[in-house]
């Protein structure tokens, strides 16, 4: 893993709001949020369900768009980017780890890890080598040709972690990564995530579980769409 310069902003969020209109009701899912995350940080965003933490994560992950405010990802003003540019940003800057793993069931572990590299246009051979390297790193070198259905939950989440790292992104976004796992697998997964942070990856972890959140170096609380540090 390359060494990155410390104290550079990976995420800068200014006065961000997300407003849903449901008929006549206006729901402020996120209300005037300010947040900066530096290179190499390990931040957990913790809050109960309905607090707006998933909405925040989706906006940070460029999967959803905000209603008001500014959001800079690694210096890119996301308001100025079209759908294609956002896809490129997701491809090279963000690695997702989802609660429900979100692996493609019909692809093998190897193919799942290769997928982000396919969309980035990495040549086949390099892709293969990198995918094998990453799967070895998460301890699945003997399972590379297995499909997700042939793997345990913990193993599937490790495949997802390998996939998130495929394009060597600046930012790893983990949304309740241990939520669907037994405590043993959950510990293993958290261990890997902490190791990633030690190697220099910036990590944002979203959870409702305060015990998981406390493993991060910095904890941000979110409640009713507002942030409290």
């Amino acid at each position, binding site marked *: 893993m390359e060494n990155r310069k410390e104290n550079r902003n990976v995420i800068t969020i200014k006065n961000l709001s997300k407003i849903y209109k449901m008929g006549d009701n206006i729901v402020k899912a996120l209300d005037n949020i300010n947040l900066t995350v530096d290179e190499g940080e390990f931040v957990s965003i913790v809050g109960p369900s309905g607090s707006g933490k998933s909405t925040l994560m989706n906006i940070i992950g460029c999967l*959803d768009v905000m209603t008001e405010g500014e959001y800079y990802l690694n210096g890119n003003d996301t308001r100025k980017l079209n*759908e*294609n540019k956002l896809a490129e940003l*997701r491809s090279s800057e963000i690695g*997702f780890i989802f609660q429900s793993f*979100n692996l*493609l069931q019909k692809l093998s572990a190897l193919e799942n890890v290769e*997928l982000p590299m*396919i969309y980035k*246009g990495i040549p086949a051979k390099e892709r293969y080598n990198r995918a094998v390297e990453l799967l070895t790193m998460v301890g699945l070198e003997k399972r590379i040709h297995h499909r997700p259905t042939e793997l345990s939950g913990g193993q599937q989440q490790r495949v997802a972690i390998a996939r998130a790292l495929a394009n060597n992104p600046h930012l790893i976004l983990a949304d309740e990564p241990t939520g669907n796992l037994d405590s043993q697998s959950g510990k293993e997964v958290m261990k890997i995530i902490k190791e990633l942070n030690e190697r220099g990856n910036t990590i944002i972890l979203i959870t409702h579980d305060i015990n998981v959140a406390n493993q991060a170096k910095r904890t941000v609380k979110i409640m009713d769409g507002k942030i409290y540090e």
Partner: protein
Amino acid sequence: MALMQAIKMSLKSIIDNKLRSFLTMLGIVIGVMSVIGLVSLGQGATEGVTSQIKSMGSNLIMVSIMGRGMDTSLSYSQAMSIGDSPYISQISPIMSANAYAKYGDQSYEENISGVNENYMALRNLKLREGRFILSIDNDVRQKVAVIGSNVASDLFGFTDPLGKTIKLDGNNFTVVGVLASGGSSISNSYDDSIFIPIKTMFVFQRNRGITQIYLSATEEQYVNIAQYHVENMLNTIFKGDKNAYRILNQSDLLSTVNSVSNTLSMMLGGIAGIALIVGGIGIMNIMLVSVTERTREIGIRKALGAKKKDILLQFMIESLTISGVGGIVGVIFGFIASYLMGHFMNMAVSPSINTIIISFSFSLLIGLFFGMYPANKAAGLKPIDALRYE
């Protein structure tokens, strides 16, 4: 994303849904097969008719005389004078009538044609036995007859007709020749005709109206010049009355027949094309189901960096592959079907390269057209909505 990768992904998903892909393909297969089969059938029929017309002699010019009354009819020598041109090699005036032919106790109404010695060559007739009408038969108004093969079997059964005397409307004629069977033909078959010297016919009918003239041009490329000459002569004879005659040459006849049967082939192809379009709707239907089923997959792909065009490409290739493979299989089955049809209908039915290319590209086009909407729908999904889809 590399095209190869998109193709790989699409093939994978087609193979993952074998039965569904197969059934969808079947629609295209049947469509392409029926287009090829029916168009080839039409073309085979055209070829059959065309070769029959060609067998009548390719330089042939046919004149029908419609003249009303004695004033506008033609005499034998007038008719022969029309053939007086360096571009015309042979001419035979014809006078046709129906008469009762009788031998022993067999009596049939048959078509009697008075012709001269050139007629046999003009119509490519073949003799089974005996001889055809000779020039001298006309000169001395011989009462001789050459009979078609059906007439021979009607009147004589298994008896050899040669040298026998038949009665045509009560007049005795000696059979001097029997024609070989010409098979069925679109022009009135000569198998059912009796030919006698035309000048004998004049006597026998007490009427000199020539009903037709057959001429042949010396070369195929002179058919038009010869026809022009004939027209001029007839104009002079009939004092410009264009309604008194009608000229038809072989190429006119060919092009008429061709245009009729081409229209027929197109119509058959069009009907089969409807089957192809129905197959296309099947593709669209299944692709829409597939997009809905795979909404979450599309969301995951988008989260991992797939652009709109990557998703579009993946689904387009899927529908194009289904229609393309369906098209190829359809071409193969179309070949087999037209071969079988040709075999059982005794026709030369072989699909032309054009038919194959057109029907195959049409199937691709259908895949493209009907795949567009579902693929666009998939590509246009918002990542967050797709990812949340359960």
